[in-house]
Protein backbone atom coordinates (compact mmCIF):
# COMPACT_ATOMS: atom_id res chain seq x y z
CA UNK A 1 0.00 0.00 0.00
CA UNK A 2 1.35 3.45 -0.83
CA UNK A 3 -1.51 5.33 0.79
CA UNK A 4 -3.90 4.06 3.41
CA UNK A 5 -6.64 6.38 4.63
CA UNK A 6 -8.68 5.29 7.64
CA UNK A 7 -11.88 6.83 9.03
CA UNK A 8 -10.85 10.31 8.02
CA UNK A 9 -13.01 13.16 9.36
CA UNK A 10 -12.60 16.83 8.67
CA UNK A 11 -14.74 19.44 10.40
CA UNK A 12 -13.93 23.02 9.49
CA UNK A 13 -14.07 25.77 12.09
CA UNK A 14 -17.31 27.06 10.59
CA UNK A 15 -18.91 23.70 11.36
CA UNK A 16 -18.85 22.26 7.84
CA UNK A 17 -18.41 18.50 8.04
CA UNK A 18 -16.43 17.99 4.85
CA UNK A 19 -15.27 14.40 5.30
CA UNK A 20 -17.34 11.84 7.18
CA UNK A 21 -15.18 8.85 7.90
CA UNK A 22 -13.50 8.18 4.57
CA UNK A 23 -11.42 5.01 4.28
CA UNK A 24 -9.61 3.65 1.22
CA UNK A 25 -6.18 2.49 0.15
CA UNK A 26 -4.07 2.93 -2.95
CA UNK A 27 -1.65 0.42 -4.50
CA UNK A 28 1.64 1.59 -6.02
CA UNK A 29 1.29 2.45 -9.71
CA UNK A 30 -2.44 3.08 -9.60
CA UNK A 31 -4.16 5.97 -11.36
CA UNK A 32 -6.94 6.63 -8.88
CA UNK A 33 -9.55 9.20 -9.84
CA UNK A 34 -11.89 10.79 -7.30
CA UNK A 35 -15.15 12.12 -8.67
CA UNK A 36 -18.08 13.91 -7.11
CA UNK A 37 -19.95 17.19 -7.15
CA UNK A 38 -18.35 20.47 -6.09
CA UNK A 39 -18.39 20.56 -2.29
CA UNK A 40 -18.41 16.79 -1.93
CA UNK A 41 -15.04 16.88 -0.14
CA UNK A 42 -12.68 15.91 -2.98
CA UNK A 43 -10.26 18.80 -2.46
CA UNK A 44 -10.34 18.44 1.31
CA UNK A 45 -9.52 14.75 0.97
CA UNK A 46 -6.46 15.39 -1.22
CA UNK A 47 -5.22 18.15 1.06
CA UNK A 48 -5.60 15.91 4.11
CA UNK A 49 -3.35 13.33 2.46
CA UNK A 50 -0.39 15.73 2.23
CA UNK A 51 -1.41 17.64 5.35
CA UNK A 52 -2.09 21.00 3.70
CA UNK A 53 -5.23 20.63 5.80
CA UNK A 54 -5.13 19.05 9.24
CA UNK A 55 -7.68 16.23 9.48
CA UNK A 56 -9.94 16.36 12.56
CA UNK A 57 -9.61 12.64 13.20
CA UNK A 58 -8.61 9.43 11.47
CA UNK A 59 -5.25 8.41 10.04
CA UNK A 60 -3.35 8.73 6.80
CA UNK A 61 -0.55 6.24 6.19
CA UNK A 62 2.00 7.01 3.49
CA UNK A 63 4.42 4.20 2.55
CA UNK A 64 3.27 2.31 5.62
CA UNK A 65 4.02 5.16 8.02
CA UNK A 66 1.38 7.15 9.89
CA UNK A 67 1.89 10.76 8.82
CA UNK A 68 -1.17 12.21 10.53
CA UNK A 69 0.68 13.48 13.59
CA UNK A 70 4.26 14.04 12.49
CA UNK A 71 5.71 17.53 12.72
CA UNK A 72 8.58 19.76 11.57
CA UNK A 73 11.43 18.15 9.68
CA UNK A 74 9.68 14.76 9.46
CA UNK A 75 6.55 16.33 8.00
CA UNK A 76 8.57 18.32 5.46
CA UNK A 77 10.36 15.15 4.39
CA UNK A 78 7.04 13.37 3.89
CA UNK A 79 5.61 16.33 1.98
CA UNK A 80 8.66 16.47 -0.29
CA UNK A 81 7.84 12.92 -1.49
CA UNK A 82 4.29 13.85 -2.44
CA UNK A 83 3.88 16.10 -5.48
CA UNK A 84 0.79 18.22 -5.95
CA UNK A 85 -0.82 19.96 -8.91
CA UNK A 86 -3.64 22.46 -8.45
CA UNK A 87 -6.64 23.68 -10.43
CA UNK A 88 -5.34 27.26 -10.46
CA UNK A 89 -1.74 26.13 -11.28
CA UNK A 90 -0.46 28.22 -8.32
CA UNK A 91 2.77 29.27 -10.00
CA UNK A 92 4.81 32.22 -8.76
CA UNK A 93 3.59 34.67 -11.35
CA UNK A 94 6.43 37.15 -11.53
CA UNK A 95 9.22 34.58 -11.67
CA UNK A 96 10.64 32.66 -14.60
CA UNK A 97 9.39 29.23 -15.58
CA UNK A 98 12.76 27.77 -14.58
CA UNK A 99 12.62 29.26 -11.06
CA UNK A 100 9.10 27.92 -10.71
CA UNK A 101 10.20 24.44 -11.67
CA UNK A 102 13.20 24.56 -9.33
CA UNK A 103 10.93 25.67 -6.48
CA UNK A 104 9.66 22.09 -6.43
CA UNK A 105 13.08 21.07 -5.13
CA UNK A 106 13.14 23.53 -2.20
CA UNK A 107 12.87 20.69 0.32
CA UNK A 108 16.34 19.56 -0.77
CA UNK A 109 17.99 22.98 -1.03
CA UNK A 110 19.43 24.81 1.98
CA UNK A 111 17.55 27.91 3.14
CA UNK A 112 20.56 30.14 2.48
CA UNK A 113 21.08 28.93 -1.09
CA UNK A 114 17.40 29.19 -1.89
CA UNK A 115 17.21 32.83 -0.74
CA UNK A 116 20.21 33.75 -2.89
CA UNK A 117 18.69 31.61 -5.66
CA UNK A 118 22.03 29.84 -5.99
CA UNK A 119 21.25 26.43 -7.44
CA UNK A 120 23.60 23.57 -8.30
CA UNK A 121 24.14 22.70 -11.93
CA UNK A 122 22.57 19.28 -11.36
CA UNK A 123 19.36 20.86 -10.10
CA UNK A 124 19.17 23.19 -13.09
CA UNK A 125 19.81 20.26 -15.45
CA UNK A 126 17.11 18.28 -13.69
CA UNK A 127 14.72 21.20 -14.10
CA UNK A 128 15.41 21.28 -17.83
CA UNK A 129 14.89 17.52 -18.07
CA UNK A 130 11.52 17.85 -16.37
CA UNK A 131 10.55 20.73 -18.63
CA UNK A 132 11.44 18.44 -21.52
CA UNK A 133 9.12 15.77 -20.12
CA UNK A 134 6.21 18.21 -20.40
CA UNK A 135 7.52 19.63 -23.66
CA UNK A 136 8.16 23.32 -22.93
CA UNK A 137 11.94 23.62 -22.60
CA UNK A 138 11.98 26.67 -24.87
CA UNK A 139 9.90 28.70 -22.38
CA UNK A 140 12.35 28.24 -19.48
CA UNK A 141 13.43 31.88 -19.24
CA UNK A 142 9.98 33.42 -19.72
CA UNK A 143 7.90 34.83 -16.86
CA UNK A 144 5.40 32.23 -15.69
CA UNK A 145 2.33 34.47 -15.93
CA UNK A 146 2.90 35.11 -19.63
CA UNK A 147 2.15 31.47 -20.48
CA UNK A 148 -1.26 30.10 -21.44
CA UNK A 149 -3.30 28.07 -18.94
CA UNK A 150 -2.30 24.70 -20.38
CA UNK A 151 1.37 25.67 -20.45
CA UNK A 152 1.20 26.91 -16.86
CA UNK A 153 -0.27 23.61 -15.77
CA UNK A 154 2.54 21.76 -17.54
CA UNK A 155 5.06 23.92 -15.66
CA UNK A 156 3.25 22.99 -12.45
CA UNK A 157 3.59 19.32 -13.38
CA UNK A 158 7.30 19.81 -14.05
CA UNK A 159 7.58 21.50 -10.64
CA UNK A 160 6.02 18.51 -8.92
CA UNK A 161 8.33 16.16 -10.85
CA UNK A 162 11.31 17.94 -9.28
CA UNK A 163 10.31 16.23 -6.03
CA UNK A 164 10.76 12.79 -7.67
CA UNK A 165 7.41 12.06 -6.07
CA UNK A 166 6.30 8.59 -5.06
CA UNK A 167 2.79 9.96 -5.14
CA UNK A 168 1.31 12.71 -7.27
CA UNK A 169 -1.86 14.46 -6.13
CA UNK A 170 -3.83 16.46 -8.69
CA UNK A 171 -6.72 18.66 -7.56
CA UNK A 172 -8.97 19.17 -10.59
CA UNK A 173 -5.92 19.81 -12.77
CA UNK A 174 -7.92 20.49 -15.94
CA UNK A 175 -11.00 22.24 -14.55
CA UNK A 176 -9.87 25.67 -15.74
CA UNK A 177 -8.67 24.51 -19.16
CA UNK A 178 -10.46 24.04 -22.48
CA UNK A 179 -11.30 20.47 -23.63
CA UNK A 180 -8.41 20.09 -26.07
CA UNK A 181 -5.83 21.36 -23.59
CA UNK A 182 -7.42 19.23 -20.86
CA UNK A 183 -6.74 16.11 -22.84
CA UNK A 184 -3.12 17.01 -23.50
CA UNK A 185 -2.49 17.83 -19.83
CA UNK A 186 -4.16 14.59 -18.73
CA UNK A 187 -1.91 12.84 -21.23
CA UNK A 188 1.15 14.02 -19.29
CA UNK A 189 -0.27 12.56 -16.09
CA UNK A 190 -0.76 9.27 -17.89
CA UNK A 191 2.81 9.41 -19.18
CA UNK A 192 4.19 10.05 -15.68
CA UNK A 193 2.05 7.23 -14.30
CA UNK A 194 3.09 4.73 -16.97
CA UNK A 195 6.73 5.72 -17.64
CA UNK A 196 7.90 6.74 -14.16
CA UNK A 197 5.56 4.44 -12.25
CA UNK A 198 4.36 7.32 -10.09
CA UNK A 199 1.10 6.68 -8.28
CA UNK A 200 -1.47 9.34 -9.17
CA UNK A 201 -4.54 10.43 -7.21
CA UNK A 202 -6.55 12.87 -9.25
CA UNK A 203 -9.83 14.77 -8.76
CA UNK A 204 -11.81 15.07 -11.98
CA UNK A 205 -15.15 16.38 -13.16
CA UNK A 206 -15.62 14.92 -16.60
CA UNK A 207 -16.53 11.27 -16.88
CA UNK A 208 -15.11 10.99 -20.38
CA UNK A 209 -11.67 11.82 -18.97
CA UNK A 210 -12.25 9.44 -16.07
CA UNK A 211 -13.00 6.53 -18.44
CA UNK A 212 -9.95 7.31 -20.51
CA UNK A 213 -7.31 7.70 -17.79
CA UNK A 214 -8.43 6.15 -14.51
CA UNK A 215 -7.42 2.68 -13.39
CA UNK A 216 -9.84 2.90 -10.47
CA UNK A 217 -12.53 5.34 -9.38
CA UNK A 218 -13.84 6.55 -6.03
CA UNK A 219 -16.96 8.69 -5.87
CA UNK A 220 -17.58 11.04 -2.98
CA UNK A 221 -20.96 12.45 -2.04
CA UNK A 222 -21.39 14.83 0.90
CA UNK A 223 -18.12 13.67 2.44
CA UNK A 224 -18.71 9.92 2.12
CA UNK A 225 -17.51 7.31 -0.36
CA UNK A 226 -20.53 6.03 -2.25
CA UNK A 227 -18.80 4.20 -5.08
CA UNK A 228 -15.53 2.40 -5.50
CA UNK A 229 -14.67 0.43 -8.59
CA UNK A 230 -13.52 0.39 -12.19
CA UNK A 231 -14.30 3.35 -14.45
CA UNK A 232 -16.09 1.12 -16.94
CA UNK A 233 -18.60 0.03 -14.32
CA UNK A 234 -20.11 3.48 -13.84
CA UNK A 235 -23.47 3.09 -15.57
CA UNK A 236 -26.46 5.40 -15.86
CA UNK A 237 -27.80 4.46 -12.41
CA UNK A 238 -24.52 5.08 -10.66
CA UNK A 239 -24.09 8.30 -12.56
CA UNK A 240 -27.42 9.60 -11.29
CA UNK A 241 -26.62 8.52 -7.74
CA UNK A 242 -23.32 10.35 -7.79
CA UNK A 243 -24.35 13.50 -9.58
CA UNK A 244 -28.03 13.69 -8.63
CA UNK A 245 -31.27 12.88 -10.46
CA UNK A 246 -31.19 16.00 -12.63
CA UNK A 247 -27.73 15.33 -14.01
CA UNK A 248 -27.03 14.56 -17.62
CA UNK A 249 -23.66 13.57 -18.94
CA UNK A 250 -21.82 16.16 -21.02
CA UNK A 251 -19.58 14.63 -23.61
CA UNK A 252 -16.24 16.28 -24.17
CA UNK A 253 -13.83 14.64 -26.52
Amino acid at each position, binding site marked *: MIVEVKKLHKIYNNGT*HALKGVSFSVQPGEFLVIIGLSGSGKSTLLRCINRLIEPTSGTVKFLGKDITHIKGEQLR*RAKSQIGMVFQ*QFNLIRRRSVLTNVISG*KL*GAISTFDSILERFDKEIIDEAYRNLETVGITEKARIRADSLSGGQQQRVAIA*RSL*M*QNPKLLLADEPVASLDPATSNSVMHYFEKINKDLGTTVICNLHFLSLVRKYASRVIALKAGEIIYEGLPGEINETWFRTIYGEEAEEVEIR
Partner: protein
Amino acid sequence: MIAEPEIEILPHKIIERNKQREDKFNFVKAVLLDIFFVFYSVVVLKRAIYYKFFLEMRELPFSWGDIGILFIISIVVGIFWASTKTSLSCKLFGIAKDNKTTKWTVEIFGWFLFNITFIAGWIVTKFSLVDLFSSEGIQGAQRIFGALFQPEMGIFDDALFAIIETIYIALLATLISIPPTLFLSFFTARNLMRDNKVSFAVYYVLRIILNFVRSIEPLIWAIIFSVWVGIGPFAGMIALFIHTIASNAKLYSEAIENIEQGPVEAISATGANKVQIVWYGVVPQIILPFLSFTIYRWDINVRMATVIGLVGGGGIGTMLIQYQGLARWHEVGLIILMIAFVVWVMDYISARIREAIY
Protein backbone atom coordinates in the same frame (compact mmCIF):
# COMPACT_ATOMS: atom_id res chain seq x y z
CA MET B 1 -9.95 20.85 18.28
CA ILE B 2 -7.92 17.87 17.15
CA ALA B 3 -9.26 14.75 18.79
CA GLU B 4 -7.11 11.71 19.36
CA PRO B 5 -7.32 9.35 16.41
CA GLU B 6 -8.16 6.26 18.46
CA ILE B 7 -11.23 7.77 20.11
CA GLU B 8 -14.41 7.46 18.11
CA ILE B 9 -15.79 10.98 17.91
CA LEU B 10 -19.29 12.09 17.21
CA PRO B 11 -18.84 15.04 14.88
CA HIS B 12 -22.26 16.52 15.67
CA LYS B 13 -21.21 16.76 19.28
CA ILE B 14 -18.09 18.72 18.37
CA ILE B 15 -20.12 21.13 16.26
CA GLU B 16 -22.72 21.53 18.99
CA ARG B 17 -20.12 22.03 21.69
CA ASN B 18 -18.30 24.65 19.63
CA LYS B 19 -21.57 26.46 19.02
CA GLN B 20 -22.49 26.46 22.71
CA ARG B 21 -19.05 27.72 23.67
CA GLU B 22 -19.24 30.49 21.10
CA ASP B 23 -22.73 31.52 22.26
CA LYS B 24 -21.55 31.71 25.85
CA PHE B 25 -18.59 33.84 24.89
CA ASN B 26 -20.81 36.11 22.80
CA PHE B 27 -23.23 36.53 25.67
CA VAL B 28 -20.41 37.73 27.94
CA LYS B 29 -19.37 40.20 25.26
CA ALA B 30 -23.00 41.32 24.86
CA VAL B 31 -23.36 41.94 28.61
CA LEU B 32 -20.19 44.04 28.65
CA LEU B 33 -21.30 46.04 25.64
CA ASP B 34 -24.76 46.61 27.11
CA ILE B 35 -23.17 47.87 30.33
CA PHE B 36 -21.10 50.24 28.25
CA PHE B 37 -24.15 51.49 26.34
CA VAL B 38 -26.05 52.19 29.55
CA PHE B 39 -23.08 53.82 31.24
CA TYR B 40 -22.39 55.98 28.20
CA SER B 41 -26.02 57.13 27.92
CA VAL B 42 -26.26 57.96 31.61
CA VAL B 43 -23.00 59.92 31.68
CA VAL B 44 -23.83 61.85 28.51
CA LEU B 45 -27.36 62.61 29.69
CA LYS B 46 -26.19 63.79 33.07
CA ARG B 47 -23.01 65.71 32.28
CA ALA B 48 -23.42 67.10 28.79
CA ILE B 49 -27.14 67.53 28.50
CA TYR B 50 -28.30 68.13 32.08
CA TYR B 51 -25.33 70.06 33.59
CA LYS B 52 -24.09 71.92 30.54
CA PHE B 53 -27.28 72.57 28.65
CA PHE B 54 -30.07 72.86 31.23
CA LEU B 55 -28.08 74.20 34.20
CA GLU B 56 -25.60 76.06 31.92
CA MET B 57 -22.71 75.26 34.25
CA ARG B 58 -19.25 76.34 33.14
CA GLU B 59 -17.22 74.14 35.49
CA LEU B 60 -18.59 70.62 35.74
CA PRO B 61 -18.39 69.08 39.21
CA PHE B 62 -16.40 65.85 39.22
CA SER B 63 -16.08 63.14 41.80
CA TRP B 64 -15.16 59.48 41.49
CA GLY B 65 -18.00 58.71 43.86
CA ASP B 66 -20.59 60.01 41.40
CA ILE B 67 -19.04 58.13 38.49
CA GLY B 68 -18.81 55.00 40.63
CA ILE B 69 -22.51 55.12 41.50
CA LEU B 70 -23.43 55.67 37.85
CA PHE B 71 -21.19 52.75 36.91
CA ILE B 72 -22.75 50.39 39.42
CA ILE B 73 -26.23 51.38 38.25
CA SER B 74 -25.12 50.72 34.66
CA ILE B 75 -23.78 47.28 35.56
CA VAL B 76 -27.08 46.28 37.11
CA VAL B 77 -29.18 47.72 34.30
CA GLY B 78 -26.79 46.37 31.66
CA ILE B 79 -26.89 42.79 32.95
CA PHE B 80 -30.65 42.99 33.24
CA TRP B 81 -30.95 44.48 29.75
CA ALA B 82 -28.73 41.84 28.15
CA SER B 83 -30.87 39.05 29.57
CA THR B 84 -34.10 40.48 28.13
CA LYS B 85 -35.29 40.21 24.56
CA THR B 86 -34.72 43.91 23.93
CA SER B 87 -30.92 43.84 24.19
CA LEU B 88 -29.08 45.82 21.52
CA SER B 89 -25.81 43.94 21.97
CA CYS B 90 -27.39 40.49 21.79
CA LYS B 91 -28.67 41.52 18.37
CA LEU B 92 -25.23 42.83 17.37
CA PHE B 93 -23.53 39.56 18.32
CA GLY B 94 -26.24 37.51 16.66
CA ILE B 95 -27.59 35.77 19.77
CA ALA B 96 -30.92 37.61 20.07
CA LYS B 97 -33.61 35.40 21.58
CA ASP B 98 -36.58 36.83 19.72
CA ASN B 99 -35.81 38.50 16.43
CA LYS B 100 -39.20 40.14 16.03
CA THR B 101 -39.12 42.02 19.32
CA THR B 102 -35.46 42.86 18.94
CA LYS B 103 -35.94 44.40 15.54
CA TRP B 104 -37.88 47.43 16.78
CA THR B 105 -36.03 47.81 20.09
CA VAL B 106 -32.75 47.92 18.20
CA GLU B 107 -34.09 50.74 16.06
CA ILE B 108 -35.27 52.69 19.10
CA PHE B 109 -32.09 52.27 21.13
CA GLY B 110 -29.90 52.83 18.08
CA TRP B 111 -31.63 56.13 17.37
CA PHE B 112 -31.46 57.11 21.01
CA LEU B 113 -27.70 56.52 21.20
CA PHE B 114 -27.07 58.32 17.94
CA ASN B 115 -29.14 61.34 18.96
CA ILE B 116 -27.67 61.86 22.42
CA THR B 117 -24.19 61.56 20.86
CA PHE B 118 -25.01 64.16 18.25
CA ILE B 119 -26.53 66.56 20.79
CA ALA B 120 -23.63 66.11 23.19
CA GLY B 121 -21.21 66.79 20.34
CA TRP B 122 -23.05 69.99 19.50
CA ILE B 123 -22.89 71.14 23.12
CA VAL B 124 -19.23 70.15 23.63
CA THR B 125 -17.93 71.95 20.51
CA LYS B 126 -19.82 75.11 21.57
CA PHE B 127 -21.25 75.39 18.09
CA SER B 128 -22.06 79.03 17.49
CA LEU B 129 -23.24 80.74 14.30
CA VAL B 130 -22.95 84.08 16.11
CA ASP B 131 -19.17 83.77 16.39
CA LEU B 132 -18.82 82.66 12.79
CA PHE B 133 -20.70 85.62 11.33
CA SER B 134 -20.08 88.46 13.83
CA SER B 135 -18.87 91.72 12.20
CA GLU B 136 -15.66 91.62 14.28
CA GLY B 137 -14.91 88.12 13.11
CA ILE B 138 -15.55 88.95 9.46
CA GLN B 139 -13.14 91.89 9.68
CA GLY B 140 -10.39 89.61 11.04
CA ALA B 141 -10.99 87.17 8.23
CA GLN B 142 -10.75 89.97 5.64
CA ARG B 143 -7.47 91.15 7.13
CA ILE B 144 -5.80 87.74 7.05
CA PHE B 145 -7.10 86.71 3.62
CA GLY B 146 -6.07 90.07 2.18
CA ALA B 147 -2.51 89.55 3.41
CA LEU B 148 -2.32 85.95 2.29
CA PHE B 149 -3.20 86.86 -1.27
CA GLN B 150 -0.51 89.56 -1.38
CA PRO B 151 2.52 87.41 -0.58
CA GLU B 152 5.82 89.06 0.31
CA MET B 153 8.34 87.91 -2.29
CA GLY B 154 11.35 89.24 -0.34
CA ILE B 155 11.78 86.00 1.58
CA PHE B 156 11.42 83.72 -1.44
CA ASP B 157 14.98 82.35 -1.42
CA ASP B 158 14.88 81.63 2.34
CA ALA B 159 11.55 79.88 1.94
CA LEU B 160 12.87 77.88 -1.02
CA PHE B 161 15.78 76.53 1.03
CA ALA B 162 13.43 75.74 3.90
CA ILE B 163 11.01 73.82 1.72
CA ILE B 164 13.84 71.83 0.11
CA GLU B 165 14.92 70.93 3.64
CA THR B 166 11.36 69.75 4.30
CA ILE B 167 11.34 67.53 1.20
CA TYR B 168 14.67 65.97 2.25
CA ILE B 169 13.42 65.38 5.79
CA ALA B 170 10.48 63.47 4.32
CA LEU B 171 12.62 61.58 1.82
CA LEU B 172 15.21 60.42 4.32
CA ALA B 173 12.58 59.43 6.90
CA THR B 174 10.83 57.33 4.25
CA LEU B 175 14.02 55.69 2.92
CA ILE B 176 15.54 54.62 6.22
CA SER B 177 12.16 53.36 7.44
CA ILE B 178 12.03 50.71 4.69
CA PRO B 179 14.31 48.00 6.19
CA PRO B 180 12.78 48.00 9.70
CA THR B 181 9.28 48.17 8.22
CA LEU B 182 9.93 45.18 5.97
CA PHE B 183 11.32 43.23 8.88
CA LEU B 184 8.36 44.03 11.14
CA SER B 185 5.69 43.49 8.51
CA PHE B 186 6.38 39.75 8.26
CA PHE B 187 6.04 39.36 12.01
CA THR B 188 2.77 41.27 12.10
CA ALA B 189 1.04 39.36 9.29
CA ARG B 190 -1.60 37.12 10.81
CA ASN B 191 -1.48 34.45 8.12
CA LEU B 192 2.25 33.84 8.67
CA MET B 193 2.19 33.92 12.46
CA ARG B 194 -0.90 32.02 13.53
CA ASP B 195 0.59 28.53 13.21
CA ASN B 196 1.94 28.15 16.73
CA LYS B 197 1.46 29.83 20.07
CA VAL B 198 4.90 31.44 20.37
CA SER B 199 4.76 33.13 16.99
CA PHE B 200 1.18 34.22 17.64
CA ALA B 201 2.27 35.83 20.92
CA VAL B 202 5.05 37.67 19.07
CA TYR B 203 2.50 38.80 16.49
CA TYR B 204 0.16 40.04 19.18
CA VAL B 205 2.76 41.96 21.18
CA LEU B 206 4.23 43.57 18.06
CA ARG B 207 0.76 44.59 16.89
CA ILE B 208 0.02 46.26 20.21
CA ILE B 209 3.33 48.14 20.20
CA LEU B 210 2.86 49.28 16.61
CA ASN B 211 -0.74 50.37 17.24
CA PHE B 212 0.46 52.36 20.23
CA VAL B 213 3.26 54.05 18.26
CA ARG B 214 0.92 54.77 15.36
CA SER B 215 -1.75 56.25 17.58
CA ILE B 216 0.71 58.94 18.68
CA GLU B 217 0.70 61.54 15.92
CA PRO B 218 3.99 62.54 14.25
CA LEU B 219 3.43 66.02 15.69
CA ILE B 220 3.73 64.63 19.21
CA TRP B 221 6.72 62.47 18.29
CA ALA B 222 8.35 65.66 16.98
CA ILE B 223 7.76 67.37 20.34
CA ILE B 224 9.31 64.38 22.13
CA PHE B 225 12.34 64.27 19.85
CA SER B 226 12.87 68.02 19.82
CA VAL B 227 13.51 67.64 23.54
CA TRP B 228 15.55 64.47 23.03
CA VAL B 229 17.86 65.50 20.16
CA GLY B 230 17.23 69.25 20.15
CA ILE B 231 15.06 71.43 17.94
CA GLY B 232 15.79 71.11 14.22
CA PRO B 233 15.43 68.94 11.11
CA PHE B 234 16.87 65.85 12.82
CA ALA B 235 14.06 65.80 15.40
CA GLY B 236 11.48 66.11 12.63
CA MET B 237 13.10 63.37 10.58
CA ILE B 238 13.21 60.92 13.51
CA ALA B 239 9.58 61.69 14.37
CA LEU B 240 8.47 60.92 10.81
CA PHE B 241 10.73 57.84 10.71
CA ILE B 242 9.09 56.35 13.82
CA HIS B 243 5.57 57.03 12.65
CA THR B 244 6.26 55.80 9.11
CA ILE B 245 7.51 52.47 10.45
CA ALA B 246 4.42 51.99 12.56
CA SER B 247 1.87 52.88 9.91
CA ASN B 248 3.59 51.27 6.93
CA ALA B 249 4.20 48.04 8.86
CA LYS B 250 0.43 47.81 9.17
CA LEU B 251 -0.15 48.46 5.46
CA TYR B 252 2.62 46.04 4.47
CA SER B 253 1.35 43.31 6.76
CA GLU B 254 -2.16 43.76 5.40
CA ALA B 255 -0.74 43.32 1.91
CA ILE B 256 0.83 40.08 3.12
CA GLU B 257 -2.48 38.98 4.61
CA ASN B 258 -4.25 39.61 1.31
CA ILE B 259 -1.96 37.60 -0.97
CA GLU B 260 -3.20 34.73 -3.05
CA GLN B 261 -2.90 31.58 -0.94
CA GLY B 262 -2.38 29.32 -3.96
CA PRO B 263 1.37 29.75 -4.47
CA VAL B 264 1.94 29.53 -0.71
CA GLU B 265 0.02 26.26 -0.66
CA ALA B 266 1.97 24.96 -3.64
CA ILE B 267 5.36 25.82 -2.17
CA SER B 268 4.52 24.36 1.23
CA ALA B 269 3.32 21.17 -0.49
CA THR B 270 6.85 20.66 -1.85
CA GLY B 271 8.19 20.26 1.70
CA ALA B 272 9.83 23.69 1.81
CA ASN B 273 10.53 25.27 5.20
CA LYS B 274 8.94 28.42 6.58
CA VAL B 275 11.59 30.84 5.31
CA GLN B 276 11.50 29.30 1.84
CA ILE B 277 7.69 29.45 1.75
CA VAL B 278 7.81 33.17 2.57
CA TRP B 279 10.61 33.89 0.11
CA TYR B 280 9.02 32.01 -2.83
CA GLY B 281 5.31 32.13 -2.05
CA VAL B 282 4.86 35.50 -0.36
CA VAL B 283 7.63 37.93 -1.33
CA PRO B 284 7.09 37.95 -5.14
CA GLN B 285 3.45 38.87 -4.55
CA ILE B 286 4.06 41.84 -2.27
CA ILE B 287 6.95 43.72 -3.87
CA LEU B 288 4.72 45.99 -5.96
CA PRO B 289 2.24 46.90 -3.22
CA PHE B 290 5.19 47.63 -0.91
CA LEU B 291 6.75 49.93 -3.46
CA SER B 292 3.48 51.69 -4.02
CA PHE B 293 2.81 52.20 -0.29
CA THR B 294 6.31 53.54 0.23
CA ILE B 295 6.05 56.12 -2.52
CA TYR B 296 2.65 57.19 -1.24
CA ARG B 297 4.11 57.49 2.24
CA TRP B 298 6.83 59.82 0.95
CA ASP B 299 4.08 62.04 -0.37
CA ILE B 300 2.29 61.95 3.00
CA ASN B 301 5.56 62.61 4.83
CA VAL B 302 6.18 65.79 2.84
CA ARG B 303 2.82 67.09 4.04
CA MET B 304 3.48 65.96 7.59
CA ALA B 305 6.97 67.44 7.58
CA THR B 306 5.51 70.91 7.01
CA VAL B 307 3.24 70.47 10.03
CA ILE B 308 6.01 68.99 12.15
CA GLY B 309 8.07 72.12 11.49
CA LEU B 310 5.50 74.04 13.53
CA VAL B 311 6.71 72.38 16.73
CA GLY B 312 10.40 72.66 15.96
CA GLY B 313 10.96 69.87 13.49
CA GLY B 314 12.84 72.13 11.05
CA GLY B 315 12.09 73.05 7.44
CA ILE B 316 9.35 75.28 6.11
CA GLY B 317 7.03 74.70 9.07
CA THR B 318 9.49 76.23 11.52
CA MET B 319 9.78 79.27 9.28
CA LEU B 320 5.98 79.51 9.06
CA ILE B 321 5.48 79.48 12.82
CA GLN B 322 8.15 82.20 13.26
CA TYR B 323 6.42 84.62 10.88
CA GLN B 324 3.02 83.73 12.29
CA GLY B 325 4.32 84.63 15.79
CA LEU B 326 5.34 88.05 14.47
CA ALA B 327 1.88 88.41 12.81
CA ARG B 328 3.59 89.11 9.45
CA TRP B 329 0.78 87.76 7.33
CA HIS B 330 2.26 88.70 3.93
CA GLU B 331 5.28 86.45 4.58
CA VAL B 332 2.98 83.74 5.93
CA GLY B 333 1.00 84.06 2.70
CA LEU B 334 4.07 83.30 0.57
CA ILE B 335 5.01 80.30 2.70
CA ILE B 336 1.50 78.84 2.52
CA LEU B 337 1.41 79.24 -1.25
CA MET B 338 4.76 77.46 -1.56
CA ILE B 339 3.64 74.62 0.67
CA ALA B 340 0.44 74.22 -1.34
CA PHE B 341 2.43 74.15 -4.59
CA VAL B 342 4.94 71.56 -3.37
CA VAL B 343 2.23 69.35 -1.88
CA TRP B 344 0.30 69.49 -5.12
CA VAL B 345 3.39 68.59 -7.19
CA MET B 346 4.34 65.72 -4.85
CA ASP B 347 0.82 64.40 -4.94
CA TYR B 348 0.84 64.42 -8.73
CA ILE B 349 4.28 62.81 -9.02
CA SER B 350 3.56 60.05 -6.54
CA ALA B 351 0.24 59.27 -8.22
CA ARG B 352 1.93 59.00 -11.62
CA ILE B 353 4.71 56.75 -10.28
CA ARG B 354 2.21 54.47 -8.58
CA GLU B 355 0.19 54.26 -11.78
CA ALA B 356 3.31 53.40 -13.77
CA ILE B 357 4.49 50.53 -11.58
CA TYR B 358 1.17 48.69 -11.63
